[in-house]
């Protein structure tokens, strides 16, 4: 798993890109190249470079072990959940939970992580909202 996969994905992506580009609706009045021309060039470049990577791959990177990979997937899930719940839960609560989670997963003991979460959320709220006046997401409790 490495450059061969990258090259193959790149080729597939290039094909999909060119196909999508060919479906761009041309407007009635247009310049000589039109809205499709440059995307076609980019698709070609992507295909060429993917081919080059596929044919002359570098040594593959060290991928994380499955457990660690799961850890990353979980982190992404937390970020997505954070983004989705932010407007409803309010900034301070959502941020405290999310940053406590990250702190914990980065190696802090549970108690410290919880404190870090509260400190980070409170600190950002204090500095950016109260001092600088940036609008953060308001939850049902108003913060």
């Amino acid at each position: 798993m490495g450059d061969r996969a990258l090259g193959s994905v790149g080729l597939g992506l290039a094909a999909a890109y060119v196909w999508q580009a060919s479906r761009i609706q041309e407007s009635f009045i247009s310049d000589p190249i039109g809205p499709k021309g440059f995307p076609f060039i980019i698709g070609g470049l992507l295909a060429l470079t993917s081919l080059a990577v596929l044919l002359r791959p570098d040594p593959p990177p060290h991928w994380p072990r499955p457990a660690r990979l799961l850890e990353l997937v979980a982190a992404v899930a937390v970020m997505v959940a954070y983004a989705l719940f932010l407007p409803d839960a309010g900034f301070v609560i959502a941020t405290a939970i999310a940053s406590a989670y990250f702190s914990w997963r980065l190696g802090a003991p549970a108690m410290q992580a919880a404190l870090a979460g509260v400190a980070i959320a409170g600190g950002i709220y204090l500095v950016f909202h109260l001092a600088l006046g940036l609008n953060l997401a308001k939850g049902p409790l108003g913060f």
Partner: protein
Amino acid sequence: MLHLRTPGRSLALALAALALMAGPSTAFEPSQTECIAPAAPGGGWDFTCRQVGKTMQDLKIIPGTMQVTNLAGGGGGVAYAEVASKRKADNNLIVAASSATATRLATGAFPGNTMDQMRWVGSIGADYGVIAVAKNSPIKTLPELFAKIKADPKSISVAGGSAVGGWDHLKVLIAAKADGISNLRAIKYVPFDGGGEAITQLLAGSVQAFTGDASEAKGFVDAGDIRVLAVLAPDRLPGDFGKFPTAKEQGIDAIGANWRGFYAPGGMSDDAYKFWVASVKQVYASPEWKKVMTQNGLAPLDLDGPQFEAFVKKSISDIQTISKEIGLIK
């Protein structure tokens, strides 16, 4: 949406609540007024909201400050749709508009929205179109330029700061049509990011002519870099631009005014509408506003209420006619 909380605002609001109101006397009492700029901070709409809001505050027409909300997206379409659907009865709201709004309404770029969904308040000035060439160009008058285009459309590239089918493009087409050029689609228009960039390309010799607004050309006219062939105004402009002839003087009856003004929600009460029409009129008449106009190269265009509504209606139908002719819309 960008909400900026300035520390001064809450204070100002509190003070304003105590202050006496000195606006035009109508049954409508404005409170917590808001102006939507349908674009990001820094553009023309943002300028319109902030300058007019500030002048209204200075003249004590409205209590406190006017909140400016930037609601960008879709070339103004996001704000238009929002006001038409969710805020259609808001009496304390006005929205910045310009020729670009009319152009997009005309070409159907705000899907499902029409001009009669809004009440059109008034204009606060206009930026008239100019057509110019580089100072060393052999072309001296507008009819000469169009004669060259008629003879060989490929030989002249016209640069402007708007997209294809945008206002800068339409201005040159309006003038060309008035001169009797029938094949408008053959005119080569090259879009740039703003008038300044287009003029730079004129100076670099990449293109042969420029179409844009007087304010965009001002710096280059002062420096003597470009020659204005025609101003697309009903009469000669005041100030520095007075030395340039109008298109009309040269036998081409074309006017291209990039107006700035406001619309308000369609469900606004008559009293509130009257208040806003009178307020915008009062701003326009104030010496403070005259100063803003000269500083920013705005020419006079004083229309309000039904008069303004008729003006917008006519410019939309003009743009529709010409857009159909070049095939931008069916």
